[in-house]
């Protein structure tokens, strides 16, 4: 079974600064996907960024980027130029490579609550 660990329950960053959220995972799979989801207060969970394990290049989406270290089983999220709207709970998640005849399931970490301050 896969496990996902987020060791930082809460973090705080000042507006315009950079912050890195940590995530490690444990799996015996070679092909898989990793995700960061964002859940703003009282709002819907949305996808921030995804990474395919077979890709060496780190994924980037505007101010959000990841540092994917496959050998170390580490998948951290970097948020640059933090904005007040980045205040949210952030979840790291793991998905095994797609298998026909069933659905691909996500395994989530326990989340990191990020507060962006003025």
């Amino acid at each position: 079974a896969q496990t996902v660990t987020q060791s930082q329950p809460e973090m705080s960053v000042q507006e315009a600064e950079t912050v890195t959220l940590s995530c490690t995972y444990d799996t015996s799979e070679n092909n898989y996907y990793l995700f960061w989801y964002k859940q703003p207060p009282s709002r819907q969970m949305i996808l921030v960024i995804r990474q395919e394990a077979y890709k060496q290049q780190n994924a980037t989406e505007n101010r959000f980027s990841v540092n994917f270290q496959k050998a170390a089983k580490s998948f951290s999220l970097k948020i640059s130029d933090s904005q007040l709207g980045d205040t949210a709970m952030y979840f790291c998640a793991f998905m095994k490579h797609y298998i026909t005849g069933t659905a691909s399931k996500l395994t989530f970490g326990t989340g990191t609550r990020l507060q962006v301050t003025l």
Partner: protein
Amino acid sequence: DVKVTQSSRYLVKRTGEKVFLECVQDMDHENMFWYRQDPGLGLRLIYFSYDVKMKEKGDIPEGYSVSREKKERFSLILESASTNQTSMYLCASSFASGSTDTQYFGPGTRLTVL
């Protein structure tokens, strides 16, 4: 835009009641999921469905059942609600296409069982 809706944002029920949580998606997704979210535990998968009338247990199915009679609708059923089922329930859906198998979430239902 993908839209996943849930029938209620907040729900209060009494112990022993039968509870239905409804989820509807409008993107013709094959896969649908039910999670519960608890502080310090993250999201845990209760049940999922990969086709109409097809369902599989997730990690914590005890005390729950599901129904998927139509592709767009996935219901979570608490046969006899208990206080330890007080939680936030999230529904999600996805295509069954592997490389684009991103899950899209509904707004959640906060259920309180008294």
